[in-house]
């Protein structure tokens, strides 16, 4: 069995407004890309901060390799890209990486910076001023600073969220390449679409708990049939739930035809119907 690069066991974290993480278990092995997906305020960023050793769990453990995640030694191997990173605007992209490179490399960090620029696809923008660089360059820079120094574990907070599809696909490919080189990657996203290409496993987080763990393709294959009725019933028949326009039914084990037949059997006049993908909230409740 491959030892886990990141391992959270029964990790809990309590914030000012209450429990943010509630007994979370996460393991990421080298070469794996695990995505934490959940709605806003579900605890994704806190989970990543605990995994990266920025904050200590209030209960449970967080380990990186054989170290406690907060151990300074763990920082040598964990690269962290925050959701909203701050850049020193007076620098160019290369200068900023050279600055950080000095903390990793004794002597000239040029080679480490060259590698980081290549991993993030930043070579054409290496001498761009950060002040005038666009969001795409900044997102690549977040990845470059995280991989700087040949880190073996990457913790990437919403790195693929809010990007145009082409850039998202390219960055996903770059993250996959790191995983193929044996790097363990833990990343977060607010939507499944952002990580469907890159994640080998998705952990669905809801109110600080991991409620589901599956392959992205499995989660994205789950469908719901929505039925618009002339007159919605007062109580839903078995296997249905009420919606403002009629009924909805999970298509996990039944076909749309069977659901519509059930509507007819209950003498419900169907005006229209359509199949859609399950939302995050629906996936979370199962």
């Amino acid at each position, binding site marked *: 069995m491959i030892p886990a690069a990141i391992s959270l066991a029964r990790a809990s974290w309590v914030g000012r407004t209450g429990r943010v993480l509630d007994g979370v278990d996460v393991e990421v092995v080298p070469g794996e890309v695990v995505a934490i997906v959940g709605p806003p305020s579900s605890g994704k960023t806190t989970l990543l901060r605990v995994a990266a050793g*920025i904050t200590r769990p209030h209960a449970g453990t967080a380990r990186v390799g054989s170290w406690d995640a907060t151990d*300074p030694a763990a920082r040598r191997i964990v690269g962290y890209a925050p959701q909203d990173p*701050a850049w020193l605007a*007076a620098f160019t992209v290369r200068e900023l990486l050279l600055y950080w490179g000095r903390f990793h490399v004794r002597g000239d960090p040029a080679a480490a910076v060259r590698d980081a620029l290549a991993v993030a696809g930043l070579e054409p923008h290496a001498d761009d001023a950060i002040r005038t660089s666009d969001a795409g360059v900044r997102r690549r820079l977040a990845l470059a600073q995280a991989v700087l120094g040949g880190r073996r574990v990457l913790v990437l907070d919403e790195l693929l969220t809010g990007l145009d599809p082409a850039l998202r696909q390219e960055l996903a490919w770059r993250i996959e390449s790191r995983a193929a080189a044996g790097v363990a990657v833990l990343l977060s996203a607010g939507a499944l679409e952002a990580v469907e290409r890159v994640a080998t496993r998705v952990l669905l987080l809801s109110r600080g708990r991991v409620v589901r763990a599956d392959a992205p393709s499995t989660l994205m294959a789950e469908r719901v049939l929505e039925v618009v009725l002339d007159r919605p019933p007062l109580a839903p028949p078995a296997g249905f739930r009420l919606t403002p326009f009629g009924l909805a039914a999970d298509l996990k084990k039944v076909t749309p035809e069977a659901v519509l037949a059930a509507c007819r059997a209950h003498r419900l006049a169907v005006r229209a119907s359509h199949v859609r993908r399950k939302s995050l909230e629906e996936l979370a409740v199962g």
Partner: protein
Amino acid sequence: MTTPAFFRHSLAEWKPVTAQVRRTRLGLWLAAIVVGALVVAGAPEGVFLPTLALAVALTAAVTAAGALAGRESGRVAALTLRHPASPVALAAGRWLGVVGLAALVTLLASVGAAWRIDLGWADGARAALGATCAALPISACALAAARLGGGVLEWLFLAFLLLVSTLLPEATASVPDGPLREATLAMLVTLPAVWRYRLLVAGDPVAWVHAASWTAAGILVTAESLRRRAP
């Protein structure tokens, strides 16, 4: 962290210092301080060079500290700490950067002012040396003030330095007995003060111990503030 790594990480901070001087308003502000000193030196009523140098050094130190320890810079430092750097090394590096800038500005202003008032460059350099010694603890405290209270606390600190702390403790004898006198005396004796740091260049041991204590305190407070600032 090993000692060589600590120094390497501290010296790495020189890179953002030079970038800020070259590409932000910090460079303009520091240049304005030099020009202002040269204008003052040309005043018909004359100027006492060591006092001018001291004012330049303190103003430059507080200005540079504000730029190098401001909010955005603190957020960058927080991300820097995700790389294998220690907060004390970063704070020490920033302190060195502030002292370096204050020393450079003071040297330029002092030598220029000496030339304007028909003194030799050596007199200017001597005045700059004395003022730079005073800038050592002041830079550390200005960094801490900028981190803890932002620009407001920083400029209050400068006002205290230039307007209050130039007085000798004996001057409080003219203040009526009471809490105000006690408080003023306590501030002049315990806080970083110009009257005391004027004695640094002469090698006064009490002044050096006082300055070293405030330098260490300022660096440690800055380091703790950076450590607490999570990305």
